[in-house]
């Protein structure tokens, strides 16, 4: 059951045709990504000769690593490799190919106001954007209850409480929360500790838990207040720009699906992106040449960009051991938010004809939030949903039926006729993400913050978690990629 993630009863034929087409494109060049073990005939690729020393090795072909590689390439450097553990690029972004050229994202997918780094990258790569669909009535479900309500592109948050959080966020710098003048006071508290003083009504309590689970990665009791305020600070100190839909960080989508950013960048880099090449051990990081021990042999480089999640950094063996403060940060970095996301595909977005927006907010059910994830023209109907991982059976068919029944209660019997279904549990699919966002607990930044940014020898820490604005988001990943490229170019100049 772990193996099956997609069912497409009506699209299987289409899929076989598509695969045939994909095979043909690969044969005539395609993206030219290389994978598998290096063979003698390929020994001219950079880094293949163990005696070769690259300027830069980049670990991770997600948005951060590929942005860094693109910057190096634009700067004229060709002496680098991107090493990727998976057999694909994109990291925590992933397109689900629905067929007929349509896609739905089953990983990170939105951009929003103030996310200028990813907006610029999309423009440079000629990737268009379009608004997340929200017009119409959202269905709120709980028990036997059901309410249709036009939330006007919001999640219906109690703004008196949200406004207080926005105000407090002015004092917590997004890129370095531990430097807040209020750090000592606020880093002791969870968001739950603070909300407990705000007289939150029973009907709003689940809403706060759901909002924090989706945006912060954990319910309010284990989410650090200081960290959450730093996230609001990223959103221009405006709660609604962080956690709403319209004019917010869930407000805008990328045409072609978010993974297209990574695919396009990797396409230009050709065989400088090496797939299925996990790094297991790093030796000599404190010397002039660092050696990376990978499943495809050794790679040697003067500088290394670590464009992977801190909890993944923690799984690599270091020789010599990393400085204690950095090792402690990696070991404590939270990775307990393994998002499970589904996509249900219909021949058309039938709910729109009923004045419904295809969104569901559910209390105490398997769905946390479902939304209309149809392509820009609404030619077919796609619903995506964040699933409470263990509150929906893992069996593919049982999960599909359970969700179909919920959608039918929300929008009518047309929901019983999907054309495809995809279930992506990021905690279980492969070991190369571990988690979605980082559920930074109380006290974390006061203890570990200072160890986040400083390079260790020739290891430069990158990835969205290190970004100065929008850490944890696609925008943060792009910012961290630019930042680490600048850092290594300067370090090479000084060497």
């Amino acid at each position: 059951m772990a193996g099956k993630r997609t069912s497409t009863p009506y699209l299987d034929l289409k899929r076989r045709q598509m695969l045939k087409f994909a095979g043909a494109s690969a044969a005539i060049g395609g993206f030219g990504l290389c994978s598998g073990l290096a063979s003698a005939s390929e020994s001219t690729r950079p880094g293949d000769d163990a005696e070769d020393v690259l300027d830069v090795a980049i670990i991770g072909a997600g948005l951060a690593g590929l942005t860094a590689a693109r910057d190096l390439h634009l700067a004229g450097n060709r002496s680098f490799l991107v090493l990727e553990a998976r057999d694909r690029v994109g990291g925590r972004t992933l397109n689900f190919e629905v067929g007929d050229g349509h896609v739905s994202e089953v990983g990170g997918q939105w951009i929003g106001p103030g996310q200028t780094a990813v907006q610029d990258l999309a423009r440079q790569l000629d990737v268009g954007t379009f608004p997340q669909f929200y017009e119409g009535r959202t269905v709120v479900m709980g028990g036997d209850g059901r309410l249709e309500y036009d939330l006007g592109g919001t999640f219906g948050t109690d703004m008196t409480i949200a406004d207080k959080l926005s105000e407090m966020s002015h004092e917590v710098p997004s890129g370095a929360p531990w430097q807040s003048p209020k750090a000592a006071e606020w880093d002791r508290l969870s968001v739950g500790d603070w909300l407990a003083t705000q007289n939150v009504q029973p009907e709003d309590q689940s809403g706060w838990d759901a909002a924090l689970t989706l945006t912060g990665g954990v319910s309010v009791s284990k989410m650090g207040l200081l960290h959450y305020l730093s996230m609001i600070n990223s959103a221009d100190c405006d709660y609604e720009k962080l956690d709403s839909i319209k004019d917010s960080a869930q407000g805008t989508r990328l045409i072609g699906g978010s993974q297209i950013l990574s695919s396009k960048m990797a396409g230009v880099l050709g065989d400088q992106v090496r797939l299925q090449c996990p790094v297991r051990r790093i030796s000599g990081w404190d010397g002039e040449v660092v050696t990376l021990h990978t499943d495809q042999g050794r790679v040697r480089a003067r500088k290394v960009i670590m464009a992977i999640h801190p909890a993944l950094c923690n799984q690599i063996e270091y020789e010599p051991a990393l400085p204690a403060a950095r090792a402690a940060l990696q070991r404590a970095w939270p990775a307990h938010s393994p998002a499970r996301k589904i996509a249900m595909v219909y021949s058309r977005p039938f709910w729109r004809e009923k004045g419904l927006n295809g969104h569901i907010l559910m209390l105490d059910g398997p769905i946390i939030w479902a939304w209309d994830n149809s392509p820009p023209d609404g030619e077919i109907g796609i619903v995506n949903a964040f699933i409470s991982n263990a509150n929906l059976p893992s069996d593919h068919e049982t999960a599909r039926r359970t969700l179909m029944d919920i959608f039918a209660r929300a929008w009518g019997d047309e929901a019983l006729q999907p054309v495809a279904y995809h279930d992506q549990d990021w905690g279980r699919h492969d070991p190369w993400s571990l988690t979605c966002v980082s559920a930074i607990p109380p006290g974390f930044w006061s203890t570990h913050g200072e160890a986040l940014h400083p390079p260790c020898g020739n290891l430069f820490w990158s990835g969205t978690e290190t970004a100065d604005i929008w850490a944890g988001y696609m925008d943060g990943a792009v910012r961290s990629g630019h930042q680490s490229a600048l850092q290594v170019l300067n370090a090479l100049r000084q060497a």
Partner: protein
Amino acid sequence: MKKLIVLGVVAGFVALLACYGRDALGLYRLMDHIATSSEAKEADSGSWPRLTDACIGCHGRQGHSLHQGYPSLAGQPAPYLASQLRRFASGERSNPNMGPLAMTLTEYEIQQLAGYFARQSAIGNGSFKPEAALVARGEQLAATAGCAACHGDNLMGHDQFPRLAGQGHDYLLAQLNAFAQGSRKDPGGVMSAIAATLSADDRRALAHYLAALAPAEN
């Protein structure tokens, strides 16, 4: 005075019902669900915000996981749960998701969580679809290996030994494999020794039997 307010609410509700019919009934049921479920949660695990809410996404409501890969915590012995949380935090039991989360817990929180999940009744693994031949083979293996000697009658667990009956299949199999390969170790080494004698097929059959086994009343 209180009565007047109640009457006012009812009058308003009747008016709504007249206007919106089915919609108002749905709204009434939704409000009723919120009131009933928040009272039930308060009685079950205290006032909001609740520490246990940090666990339910992966371990299910009240520790009843519907997912074969994420273990159910309901009805697990409190001493077992507490010692596993401590072992995750110290790194003696290695898990990239649980390690950092367990490190955030105080000893008081560990006791609170262990006690809470131990109090919940174990329920059957309803979403598991067993294969009869594997179940039969697994039952023989469980008898030969003497699982009940440590895990107790009906494999319901006690003290430091977890309940196996009705646990998630994928989780059970992953643990048996981890013991066999040495990536998980139990303090006495008994599980490592037993798992090492089982073939991959045996481990599969055993996980199948245990996942399908209905928990006894405890």
